[in-house]
């Protein structure tokens, strides 16, 4: 009898030893009751409390998409949301952080002027109008904490890359011709109004201090233009709006990770040497079409580092999932991959690495197959190690 009791107690005690595992991975979808509203997330930024999601809010009352900001706690739970009024539209990333405020671009729908919108962790919003900077297209920050703004000048028919300080004051910039007599206004309006069908991957960023790139209209094509806020030093020429670069990430020196499109094909190179002081064509980098991705997929490339440095390429698959692939930065070798999304379509908006080295994938999904809502998928760093092994 005693032995039986001992045995039973031992079994129960041993069974109580539960496996400890990371608790920080999650996938959450943020829903509204309204069937006539849809959300297209733009970017996510980490704050002390959790995250802020920046989204386009498609409202019936206004022509351009409105601005919505959602605060999410660190476990992915919705905390609060603020919708900016109809005088601020077309939220544009990247969502960048300088000191304790987070910044993004928006547009005044009346003047078409760009606005730098800043928001703190409590969703207190401030806006600065960039007079004369029209049609905002892309936003980033430089290594010395200035804002890099890609815009389109309707009056001059030129693409403009400009630098602004933290107060929005213009410090430097340069216009780039879209080609004599080449009016791209319709392409830009369609990019705003019909992003699903006519969206274009406008980008801007810094290659190294004082050296910049933008992906936009230049000289009759949608091109990747390298410059020092002066005449281009190098160009990766697209093919009208039918071919060009979708995403780019400087890896080291003259090496880049790139993702591009050529009509309905996509291509990518996790490690591609590019001479930023010469003119090439995007089709030069198409060695093998990536048939797993949908035509004109959104694509994001970020750097991820644990003990090894990786390049993470994310894009939308033909099966309407979001694929995340990890390549060793030094060799370009594929090290792991994961697909996100089941049953309903999942679309990609942004990929970020947070301060704890977790990966954040922001996008939209169609709840019940029809209502476009934002989703946030957080992949814990330990789970990433599993993917990489």
């Amino acid at each position, binding site marked *: *009898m005693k032995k039986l009791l001992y045995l*039973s107690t031992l079994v129960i005690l041993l069974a109580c030893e539960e496996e400890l595992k990371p608790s920080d991975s999650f996938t959450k979808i943020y*829903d*509204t009751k*309204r069937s006539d509203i849809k959300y297209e997330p733009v970017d996510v930024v980490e704050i002390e409390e959790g995250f802020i999601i920046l989204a386009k809010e498609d409202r019936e009352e206004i022509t351009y998409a409105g601005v919505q900001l959602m605060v999410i706690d660190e476990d992915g739970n919705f905390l609060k949301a603020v919708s900016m009024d109809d005088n601020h539209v077309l939220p544009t990333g990247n969502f960048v952080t300088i000191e304790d405020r987070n910044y993004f671009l928006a547009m005044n729908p009346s003047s078409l002027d760009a606005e730098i919108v800043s928001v703190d962790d409590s969703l207190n919003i401030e806006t600065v109008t960039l007079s004369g900077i029209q049609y905002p297209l892309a936003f980033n920050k430089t290594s010395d904490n200035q804002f890099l703004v890609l815009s389109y000048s309707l009056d001059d028919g030129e693409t403009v890359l400009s630098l602004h300080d933290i107060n929005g004051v213009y410090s430097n910039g340069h216009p780039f011709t879209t080609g004599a007599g080449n009016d791209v206004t319709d392409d830009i309006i369609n990019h705003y109004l019909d992003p699903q069908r006519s969206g274009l991957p406008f980008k801007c960023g810094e290659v190294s201090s004082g050296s910049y790139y933008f992906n936009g209209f230049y000289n009759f094509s949608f091109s990747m233009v390298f410059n020092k806020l002066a005449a281009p030093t190098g160009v990766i020429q697209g093919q009208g709006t039918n071919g060009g670069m979708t995403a780019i990430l400087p890896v080291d020196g003259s090496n880049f990770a790139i993702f591009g499109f050529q009509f309905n094909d996509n291509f990518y190179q996790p490690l591609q040497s590019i001479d930023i002081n010469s003119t090439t064509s995007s089709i030069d980098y198409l060695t093998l079409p990536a048939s797993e991705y949908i035509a004109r997929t959104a694509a994001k490339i970020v750097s991820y580092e644990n003990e090894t440095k990786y390049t993470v390429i994310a894009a939308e698959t033909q099966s309407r999932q979001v694929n995340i692939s990890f390549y060793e930065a030094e060799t370009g070798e594929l090290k792991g991959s994961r697909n996100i999304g*089941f049953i309903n379509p999942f679309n990609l908006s942004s990929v970020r690495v947070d301060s704890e080295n977790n990966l954040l994938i922001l996008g939209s999904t169609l709840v*019940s197959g*029809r209502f476009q809502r934002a989703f946030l998928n957080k992949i814990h760093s330990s789970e990433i190690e599993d993917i990489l092994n």
Partner: protein
Amino acid sequence: MTPNVCSYASKLLTVCFLLIAASTYGQRTMKPKLPNSDYKKFLKTQWWLGMRVGTTLSGPSAKETFSSIDPIDYEVEDLSKTYSKYKNPGVLIGLDLTFYHRGVSAGIQPTFKQLIYGYSSLLQWEGTTPEQTFESSYDSKQKLNYLDIPFILKFDILTDGKIRPFVGGGVNYAFNIGAEKETSIVNTDNTSGTPRSYDAGNFVVNNQDQFKNFFGMKFGGGVSFDYFNIRTAIDVFYNLGFTNVSDENARYELNELTTLGDVNDDLNLNHLSVAVSFLFPLRYIDNTFQPY
């Protein structure tokens, strides 16, 4: 039953058969003879080994409700699930090893136990017109397989005779060894002005990772029948789950049902079990032994 259940059950049956065969072989070869006083003393103590089969009915008790959908402008309670309780029978099959002494039995019953429960939930959207109203209803059936290790004490109400009612109780620890969820979706569309429902899919997901082991207690009673040198016991026990069966750490991990908002609530898995046991004595006197 699923193929997994059949596999577990067949393995358990094989083990039961081998153990019982061994015990009956022992009875045929052991033939001690005892005087009358020793004979009565002998009857006060016994080891029993056998197998038990039966059914379960689960009544989950949700402590907190969760969804992978987070509402922006409506109450999270609107996403809560409605559970159907004690409606979905599962199987149980296992061993029963009991030590009996003067009307008190103590035993362990390693049992494969299938617990099944169902729930439904409803998502609704509204627009500016009635035609923009849309509904998605989800009906899910969750099947959970456990290896349950209970330690049970039973007290015979009558200690003499061939029919002995008893009451008992105990504690148990259940190891999660499998889980499968089946969800069917029905959408109701009002676009044409009148509600029209249609089947929007049926999904089966292996979700063992979403569950964990649990600890509980049980109480109940039954009656045993001592005929043909075996004991046949029928018992009914109510099992109270003390710990959450849902794995909080895995709740929001992405799976096929995340898009539907379907994640597990925190719940205790209370259930009713009804079983019949066939027990063989492991100690005996001789081949003319008339024990009762």
